[in-house]
């Protein structure tokens, strides 16, 4: 029995090994890469849904350049080491353009491979400034504003509207959170605000009272948080329970309905930056409705941005008349396209023009955009 089992396993290996990808047909291949499983799947799955909806719609209208669009969905679990394999798989399978990846680290690891293969990628969610500003990823574009834009907005709002003089910055030591916090520190300092405290907290720790007490001691006007909502709600809740009414401001990692739900009444008055409100955009409404019909639930994070990225890519291929790198890139950076995020195009760095961030404030259990 043992022998048969081993032969089975061996033959399985060989079989899988030989099942190399088939040859490209007459289709436009759109790769979708990001975290589709694991603990960050909730950031990646909405982008897959968005791509599916857009491709279905476009194929129903006759496709791009007369060809149907084929989706190649690959998971990278948001890990750089996996993202490399994911990217190679997409390149091996002959993708023409890529929508992804989701996390900045994974994106950085994948972009080198796309660059060598001459493939353009648009991410709906990778906000690390280096991706566009460093110039090392010429084939990268995104439909979300990068962290520096967000940090500058925070500084502008905090100094002009809230008139703060002294702040404390906390972060979760992660790629996203610490990056945000560092940018905030830089711009706040330039704006002449006293950054009295800059510290990381350990995500998942059982208790944050020591750090909250430390914040209390420096008496800041505002706490700026770099990181996601779970830790933010813990810290805000604890601050309020400890009778501190210091203002609290997070970034798009906090602007999530779960934050309000978790922090409950303590969430009131918290500021968070997030992508500009598009709930009035007709395309966004239609896309949301389509999602509800197709998947039976409301779309999740980065859905609109992914929808926009997919539309922009396919539109550029159509306008360029081919999938040639230079032609598509030129089209992306010159043509404007209607998306759920509004009428957008891309600047020389690869950042989207026509999108931006707004500041929101929790009022009566909902995020309200601050004009």
């Amino acid at each position, binding site marked *: 029995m*043992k*022998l048969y089992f*081993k032969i089975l*396993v061996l033959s399985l*290996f060989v079989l*899988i*090994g030989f099942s*190399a*990808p088939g040859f490209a047909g007459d289709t436009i291949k759109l790769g979708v890469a990001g975290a589709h*499983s*694991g603990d960050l*799947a909730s950031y990646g799955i909405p982008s897959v849904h968005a791509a599916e909806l857009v491709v279905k719609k476009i194929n129903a209208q006759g496709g791009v350049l007369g060809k149907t669009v084929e989706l190649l969905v*690959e*998971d990278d*679990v948001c*890990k*750089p*080491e996996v*993202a*490399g*394999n994911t990217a*190679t*798989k997409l*390149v*091996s*399978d002959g993708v023409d353009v890529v929508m992804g990846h989701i996390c*900045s*680290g994974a994106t*950085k*690891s994948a972009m*080198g*491979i796309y660059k*060598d*293969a001459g493939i353009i990628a648009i991410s709906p969610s990778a906000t*690390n400034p*280096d991706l566009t500003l460093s110039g*090392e990823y010429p084939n990268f574009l995104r439909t979300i504003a990068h962290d520096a834009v967000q940090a500058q907005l925070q500084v502008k709002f905090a100094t002009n509207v809230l008139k703060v003089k002294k702040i404390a910055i906390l972060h979760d*030591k*992660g*790629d996203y*959170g*610490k*990056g945000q916090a*560092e940018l905030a520190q830089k711009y706040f300092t330039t704006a002449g605000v006293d950054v009295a405290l800059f510290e*990381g907290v350990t995500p998942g720790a059982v208790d944050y009272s020591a750090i909250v007490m430390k914040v209390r001691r420096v008496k800041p006007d505002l706490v700026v948080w770099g990181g996601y909502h779970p830790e933010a709600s813990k810290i805000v809740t604890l601050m309020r329970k400890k009778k501190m009414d210091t203002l609290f401001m997070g970034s798009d990692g906090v602007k999530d*309905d*779960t934050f309000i*739900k978790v922090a409950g009444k303590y969430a009131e008055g918290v500021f968070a930056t997030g992508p500009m409100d598009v709930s009035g955009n007709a395309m966004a409404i239609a896309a949301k409705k389509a999602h509800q019909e197709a998947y039976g639930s409301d779309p999740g994070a980065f859905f609109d941005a992914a929808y926009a990225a997919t539309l922009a890519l396919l539109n550029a291929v159509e306008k360029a008349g081919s999938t040639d790198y230079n032609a598509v890139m030129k089209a992306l950076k010159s043509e404007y396209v209607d998306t759920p995020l509004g009428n957008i195009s891309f600047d020389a760095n690869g950042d989207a023009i026509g999108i931006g961030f707004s500041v929101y404030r929790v009022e009566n259990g909902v995020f309200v955009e601050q004009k």
Partner: protein
Amino acid sequence: MTATGEIKKSVLVSLWFMFLTFPIMVIRVNTVQDVVEWRWLNMAYIGIGTFFISMLWRYMIRRKEREGKKEKTDNLSFAQKIILDKKIFIPLVALTGLFIIVFPHMFSMYQTNIMISALIYVMLGLGLNIVIGLAGLLDLGYVAFFAVGAYSYALLNLHYGLVFWLALPLGGFLALIFGVILGYPVLRLRGDYLAIVTLGFGEIIRLVLENWNEFSFGPSGIPNIPKPPLFGVDLSLSGSIIYLYYIIVGLVIFTIFVINRLENSRIGRAWIALKDDEIACQAMGIDKARTKLRAFGLGAMWAGMAGVIFAAKTTFINPASFTIWESVIILCTVVLGGMGSITGVISGALLLILLPEYLRAFSEFRMIIFGAVLVLMMVFRPGGIINNVRKTYKFQKT
């Protein structure tokens, strides 16, 4: 035991698991939107599944007990027979060698790429095997040395433009130094404490990399690490992947060679003796601390070299790639294949790394399967798939 007795037992087990998994498997609450989802079908799956699994479980336990009794007779498994039989083994090796050489030309770039990943794990597994399989030290922070290697290359290249070929030995050497420094104070601890302390060290190194921005660029990592150069030839994407593939193949062969030599040497014998009985080992004049340190350091060195390759392959590294779970995955490859056995570790690593890549549809089950593998292997086959028959020294009278 009668058939009805068996069925009754399995029914009880199945009922128990239906009860046990009820809240987690059947109900799903979304407290954000206040909806409850009832998934009764899961309960049926669990019931039916555990019914059969419990039968299989008891059968396996009984079989293991039977095997345990007749252990003394030389009962070699299929795989062992192949390895020991020179007539089959040598052509098999030749065939495998040929397959390895033509592999990147037969299959796509992607296949080659994941083979590189798998071979990095083979190297890591073989390195960890020195520590666990030969010297019997459970190291749960092995990934720290992997990180040391990867960061050595990334940082030295960034600051001093150090090329891959210099970084490879240097990364290994730095990891070795780290291994020795960390190992020195803790190697006299008892087995399970050692495991925890190494786990702690592994986390410390990751946390330092995460927090010490000035040194390691913190959580945002280091991008654009160059791939290995080939005499100034500018390689295309697929060319550089194939080149890297041959490098790692060469290194794996080198690793196998070295470990083979070590195993059959004075040092290797001391490791195995140490694993068998520490007290007797010392009474034979073997320096316990030094022998352990040697194993620890050598294991670290291999992780360091694998780290350099890893950095060159992904071209981007950040601390998130070096968590404790990475150590657990490496441990899993060693345990699955068979601690102490080179062939075992290689097959374990290839199985565990390649299968999830090919069965991407099931990738979300990857970690849960790793967990199950660790438990099941310990319960049913502590020796691994390829139970290690140590090549003992056969005396030839001269």
